């Protein structure tokens, strides 16, 4: 039986990166989720770019999970046949991860945004101070972290 492109990709990932992948599965049509160990995302993204033409990055999502920050790289091949989500975690007290802008130049803005709003440091990406926050924003305050509250107090959802 001929495997679909997505199934072939999942097979290849499990075969070549068996020690680095925690989970890889096809969730529904056009959605593939892969969970990788810390530090493994660069090799996997480079492999996928060369082998499967996955060069389009949709965005990078950062999720504050309490003790860790999870980064999800949303990638798609050139013919946009499916959407691939690569998840990896960094600890919140030392949020450093290697950059991918040499592999996928389109990720520059997304890494800067995650750095500005969540405080994740991308090693190898020299970025100027603030991307979208104003110049007089205090140091060390990352608005999208769940424990950050605005100074004026938290409004309740008025119904």
């Amino acid at each position: 039986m001929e495997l679909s492109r997505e199934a072939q990709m999942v097979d290849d990932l499990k075969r070549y990166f068996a020690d680095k992948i925690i989970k890889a599965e096809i969730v529904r049509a056009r959605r593939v989720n892969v969970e990788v160990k810390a530090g493994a995302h660069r090799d996997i993204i480079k492999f996928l770019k060369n082998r499967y033409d996955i060069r389009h990055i949709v965005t990078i999502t950062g999720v504050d999970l309490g003790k860790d920050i999870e980064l999800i790289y949303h990638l798609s091949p050139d013919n946009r046949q499916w959407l691939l989500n690569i998840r990896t975690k960094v600890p919140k007290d030392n949020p450093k991860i290697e950059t991918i802008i040499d592999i996928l130049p389109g990720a520059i803005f997304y890494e800067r945004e995650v750095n500005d709003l969540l405080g994740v440091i991308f090693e190898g990406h020299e970025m100027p101070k603030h991307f979208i926050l104003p110049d007089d924003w205090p140091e060390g305050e990352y608005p999208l972290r769940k424990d950050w509250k605005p100074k004026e107090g938290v409004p309740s959802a008025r119904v």
Partner: protein
Amino acid sequence: MGIIKWSRLKSPWILYMCTGACNACDIEVIAALTPRFDVERFGILLKGSPRHADVLVVTGAVSRHVAPRLKRIYEQMPHPKFVIAAGTCACSGGVYWGCYNVLGGIDKVIPVDIYIPGCPVRPEAVIDGVVKLLMKLKGG
């Protein structure tokens, strides 16, 4: 009334600034200049520099980054000058209550003469607001 006041009433020149808005009010204010609504029949012209303008039309909930620039533009306009706040966000912050980085209403930065509510503001309401400003000037 003197000739200066008469000429100011017959042809107020406006300067338009967007301070962190979603752009719906912006396109409705620009639509007020287009042939269907045609605010130019009141002698209103859209000018490029704050030094040439009498009236400043501002839209948008003021974000922290743009607030000092708004103040600088206001200070660059020569006296007498008037400010119209177009849209609910410019009047009071609008739908962005509770969002950090939004100061909420331009009257926290500069004094305002006319408030035009609406989300987005209708072009007919913009014309109404401008006419009310002219009546206010005429009255004294």
